[in-house]
C-alpha cells in the first residue's frame, strides 16, 4: 500500500534521513521507535509530504507522490495524520472540527457529515462534547477528537506522530485505547511512539530508527525480547 524507496531528507546541511527503504502493507500497524533526533517523526511526515523529501520516492497505492505532477491534496485525503499537539481548530466546536473537511472537500451535506461525525464521536466516546469548543477539553479528549477529525475523511492509512507525548500520564490510556480499537478493525497505521508497552502490544511490525536510518525491524515481541543490534539494546536498556 505504501512503498518507500531510498528516502533522504536534509534540513539545510543537516541530514535527517539517510536512505530509508520500507513498505507498509494493508492492515499493518507499523510502530516506529528510536531516540529523539533519530528522524522518526521526519520519516512519518514525509509519507504525507508534510516534509518534502530531498531524494527518493514514496509510493501510495502505486502512485509516486514525490512526482510534482501528483495532486498531493488528493493523496492527503487518503492518508490521515494525528499530531503530538492535537492541532484542533480552536475557533470551531468539536462537531465543526470534524465536519469541516468532509463538507468543504468531499462536498458532503451538513447532515451527512454530522451523521458521520456523531458516529465517530461515539467511537471515541465523546458524543456529549459535540458542541464544546476545544479549549474546554482535556488533552486526552482533544487527541481523541483529533483522531475522529482525521477519520472523518475515511482515510486508508493513519499516521500518528507521537500521539501521547504531550499528554498527562493519566490520559495516555484513553488515547491508546482508541488507537487499539482502530488496529482491531484492521486500519493501516504508522505510529511514532515512546510507549514501548503499547508498541509491543499493537504493532504488527516494529522499526527501530537511529541517526536517520532503520537499524532494526521485525516482529515487535521478538525484537523487544531479543534485540540483535547493539544500539537497539542500548536504547531499550534506557527506556524500559
Amino acid at each position, binding site marked *: 500500500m505504501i512503498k518507500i524507496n531510498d528516502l533522504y531528507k536534509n534540513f539545510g546541511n543537516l541530514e535527517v534521513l539517510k536512505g530509508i527503504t520500507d513498505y507498509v502493507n494493508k492492515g499493518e500497524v507499523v510502530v516506529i521507535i528510536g531516540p529523539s533526533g533519530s528522524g522518526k517523526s521526519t520519516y512519518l511526515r514525509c509519507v504525507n509530504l508534510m516534509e518534502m523529501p530531498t531524494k527518493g520516492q514514496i509510493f501510495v497505492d502505486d502512485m509516486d507522490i514525490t512526482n510534482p505532477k501528483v495532486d498531493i491534496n488528493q493523496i492527503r485525503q487518503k492518508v490521515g495524520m494525528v499530531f503530538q499537539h492535537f492541532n484542533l*481548530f480552536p475557533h470551531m466546536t468539536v462537531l465543526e472540527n470534524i465536519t469541516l*473537511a468532509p463538507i468543504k472537500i468531499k462536498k458532503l451535506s451538513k447532515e451527512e457529515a454530522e451523521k458521520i461525525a456523531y458516529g465517530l464521536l461515539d467511537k471515541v466516546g465523546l458524543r456529549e462534547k459535540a458542541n464544546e*469548543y476545544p479549549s474546554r477539553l482535556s488533552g486526552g479528549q482533544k487527541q481523541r477528537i483529533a483522531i475522529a477529525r482525521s477519520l472523518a475523511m475515511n482515510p486508508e492509512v493513519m499516521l500518528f506522530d507521537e500521539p501521547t507525548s504531550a499528554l498527562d500520564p493519566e490520559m495516555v490510556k484513553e488515547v491508546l485505547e482508541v488507537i487499539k480499537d482502530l488496529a482491531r478493525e484492521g486500519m493501516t497505521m504508522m505510529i511514532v511512539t515512546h510507549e514501548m508497552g503499547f508498541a509491543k502490544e499493537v504493532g504488527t511490525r516494529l522499526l527501530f530508527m537511529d541517526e536517520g536510518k532503520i537499524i532494526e525491524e521485525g516482529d515487535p515481541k521478538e525484537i523487544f525480547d531479543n534485540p540483535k543490534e547493539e544500539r537497539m539494546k542500548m536504547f531499550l536498556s534506557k527506556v524500559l
Partner: protein
Amino acid sequence: MLENFLVKIQWQQTVDFYKVFFEKQFYLVVFNGMLWTLGLTAIALVIGMMIGILVAVVQMSQFPSKFKWLEKILKWITKTYIDIIRGTPAVVQIVFMWSVIFAGSNLPRIVVGGIAFGVNSGAYMAELIRAGIQGIDKGQMEAGRSLGFKYMETMRYIIMPQAFKQMLPAFVSEFIILIKETAIISFIGGLDLMKASSIMVSRTMNATQPLLIVAACYLLLTGVFTKVMRRVEKKINISS
C-alpha cells in the same frame, strides 16, 4: 494659564458664541465636516486594507524556485514601501500626494486625501496582518493541509478566522488613529472637522468653543466606534 482659560469659557462669551452658532447655522459646517472626516476615513480604510493585505501576502509568500527572483523584487518593493511610509511624517506624504503626484489631476481633494491616507495606513496594516497571521500556531496550517485542504483553503477556513480575531484590537486602534490623523487634511484644503473649527474661529474670533465642539465630535466618532468594536470582540470571544 488656567485663569486665562476660565475667562475664555466664561458665560457671556459662550452665550455670544452659541448665538452666532445657531444664527449662522455653524452646526451645518460642523456636520459637513464630520461627514467629510468620515468619508475620508472610509476611503482610506478601504484602500489601506487592500494594500495591507496585498503587502502582507507578498511578504509571507514563498515562490517556487523558478520565480525566486520575482519574490525577491516584490519583497524589496514592499519592504521599501513600509520603510518610507513609517519613516516620513504623514503630513509630508499627504502634501506630496496632492502637490506632486496628483498635481494637475481633476480628482477631488477627498479622493486624493483618501488615497494618501490609505497608502499611509496600508503600511501599518500590512504589519498588523502579517503579525496576526504569523502569530497563529503553525500546527494549524499542518492540520489543515493534512486533511487535504489546499494552502488557500486552509488560509480561508482555518488561519484567517483565527488571525482576524487576534488582529481585531490592533485594527481598532489603527482605525482610531486614522480618524484622528485625518485632521491634517486641511494642509491640502480638505473640508473636514478641523477645517470646520478654523472656519468658526475666524468668523467669531473665539477659539475655545469651536475647538471644544470639534474635539467633542472626534471623541464621539472614536467613542462610538470603540464601543461597537468592544461588543464585536466580546461576541467573537464567546466562541472559544
